[in-house]
């Protein structure tokens, strides 16, 4: 339904008064259908198996809700006609990734989804480097996508008598392919350029929706491809995941702590949280997997709110530096989004981060210390942003005209607060998936 709606939105894209509500209705209808679909139902399309899992439904719900808020913001506050069909197509591919059960098909659909936003990354091409940023993104996705699918295909056709080195090489290529797609350090150069040059809503679409989807796809592919038992036996692969995760967690946090503007702060914080989540997965333990997935889903939602708020602050304050004086509600939304990003209690980001850091300590004290250090650096970065926004004070606390980003940020904050007070409903489907992961790890 979303894919058909994307085609319709493409035809209507220059009629903003029509395409905005059309996209919102399509996303709302898809959200209702996702909620109404019973759990663990299976189906087949073109000989590809589909399954509605608890994690799939939870992630689909969060992704569709985030897309709804992004489309609402673009329609009301930041008109960009390419965004509507892009958002619907991204929604369609993300939901497809979450219901497919064939690893190759999941990867193929993920690559499609990651390529779609290229159209909404480029804008005002004479005034900025958005074409260069989009070209780099295109290159990273094509490279990571093709290498990943090729390594999965080769791994699936490996004969049983293949030496362990061949297997290690293929899994290393698969992990590096995902590191390219997730913009993990040291493969983050395209993310840095995107952060500076593309519209905030498109950036939120990428870091708020597609990056969490990519992470979930990575974990699902590991589970469904049958690679996990061999990964346990070959410690090198676990070490590689661990190394990339720690580098991203600490490196991203360092970059975030010195970020020159709000957008970069958010993007580097996402990279740092993704790194911590990779460490959680690398522990190959229940709490690590639950913490990683919970943290990534919350990071996507809070990054979307923060990026929209950063965009509004930039527009209202231009040509000066963003300040809370010009858009106090958006500034407040940015700050409370930061709380979720660092995993502060009682917000929903806390349980995930707590699980990850706890299990990281159990895994290796140095790893746990590194994750705590990364969190401290993120706090420093967010505090710097608060000082930059509110340092000169706010003369009058009057709402800015069209406080769309501020309201969206508040909605996300309230949702994360309610989820944090009652985390059971959020964590249960993730725990159920963690069980599947652990069963795939030790099939006997």
């Amino acid at each position, binding site marked *: 339904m979303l894919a058909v709606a994307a085609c319709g939105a493409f035809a209507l894209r220059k009629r903003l008064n029509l395409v905005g509500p059309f996209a919102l209705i399509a996303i709302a209808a898809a959200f209702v259908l996702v909620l109404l679909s019973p759990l663990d139902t299976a189906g087949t*399309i*073109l*000989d*590809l198996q589909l399954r509605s899992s608890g994690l799939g439904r939870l992630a689909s719900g969060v992704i569709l809700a985030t897309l709804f808020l992004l489309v609402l913001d673009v329609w009301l506050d930041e008109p960009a006609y390419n965004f509507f069909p892009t958002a619907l197509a991204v929604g369609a591919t993300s939901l497809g990734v979450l219901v497919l059960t*064939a690893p*190759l*098909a999941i990867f*193929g*659909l993920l*690559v*499609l989804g990651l*390529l*779609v936003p*290229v*159209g909404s990354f*480029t804008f005002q*091409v*004479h005034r900025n480097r958005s*074409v260069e940023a*989009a*070209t780099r993104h*295109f*290159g990273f996705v*094509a*490279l990571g*996508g*093709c*290498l990943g*699918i*090729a390594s999965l*295909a*080769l791994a*699936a*056709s*490996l*004969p049983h008598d*293949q030496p362990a*080195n*061949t297997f290690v*090489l*293929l899994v290393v290529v698969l992990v590096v392919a995902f590191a390219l797609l997730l913009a993990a350090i040291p493969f983050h150069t395209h993310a840095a350029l995107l952060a500076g040059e593309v519209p905030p809503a498109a950036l939120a679409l990428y870091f708020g929706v597609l990056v969490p989807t990519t992470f979930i796809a990575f974990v699902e592919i590991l589970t469904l491809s049958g690679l996990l038992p061999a990964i346990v036996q070959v410690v090198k692969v676990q070490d590689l995941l661990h190394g990339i995760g720690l580098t991203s967690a600490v490196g991203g946090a360092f970059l975030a702590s010195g970020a020159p503007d709000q957008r970069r702060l958010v993007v580097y914080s996402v990279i740092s949280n993704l790194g911590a989540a990779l460490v959680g997965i690398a522990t190959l333990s229940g709490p690590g997997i639950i913490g990683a997935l919970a943290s990534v889903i919350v990071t996507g939602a809070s990054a979307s709110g923060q990026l929209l708020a950063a965009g509004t602050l930039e527009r209202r304050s231009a040509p000066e530096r963003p300040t809370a004086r010009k858009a106090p509600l958006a500034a407040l939304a940015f700050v409370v989004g930061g709380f979720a990003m660092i995993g502060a209690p009682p917000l929903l980001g806390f349980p995930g981060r707590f699980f990850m850091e706890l299990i990281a300590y159990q895994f290796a004290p140095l790893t746990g210390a590194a994750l705590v250090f990364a969190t401290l650096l993120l706090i420093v970065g967010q505090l710097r942003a608060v000082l930059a926004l509110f340092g000169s004070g706010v003369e009058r606390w009057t709402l800015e005209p069209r406080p769309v980003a501020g309201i969206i940020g508040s909605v996300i904050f309230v949702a994360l607060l309610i989820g944090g007070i009652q985390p059971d409903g959020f964590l249960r489907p993730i725990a159920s998936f963690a069980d599947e992961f652990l069963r795939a790890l030790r099939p006997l």
Partner: protein
Amino acid sequence: MIALGIVALATLAANGSRQLRYSAVALLGVSLAANAMTAGQLTVTQLAVEGCGALVACGILYVAARDRTYGEDPGWRLWLATIVAAAATAACFATLRTASSETVSVPLIGEDPSGVTAQVAAFWLISSGVAILVTAQTPVRGSLGAILMITGVELLVRLLTVPQLGLSLLLGWVEVVIALAGGFLIVNERVVREN
């Protein structure tokens, strides 16, 4: 073997061309030869799907060029990409070959049931694509590298003993979307360059 030779020569032609339109035509040659190589392993529907995907992708790049002179001069990158691709193909075939390790006979014309030629072609296309993409200066060679890579991936996936129709359709779409995104970037990059 002849199809493998055509894949190699057409890849070199696409890589060495200074005009995007010639590269697009050479890419079509690569896809046709790759499809001919594995024709016996796919149904007519699957072949038609992947053939259409390749045709549309090459058509998009041809149209995106807008005139016959537009393109990117590969310069020294042509030689670098060729040498890297040749070395990587040999290394990949030595370490990652999943085709039968028994003695195989590779016919000059006709189907190769062992899949050795298809796997060599896949490794060649993927390593050429990586080398071209990594050294690309503009979206012209970026798109070229990406389409070569996805053609190689299609060949590898065809060798799997799993239901293929859904995967063929999906990979055909990936190829078209790569060409669409690449074409979009080529047009935008040209606008930036000309102003």
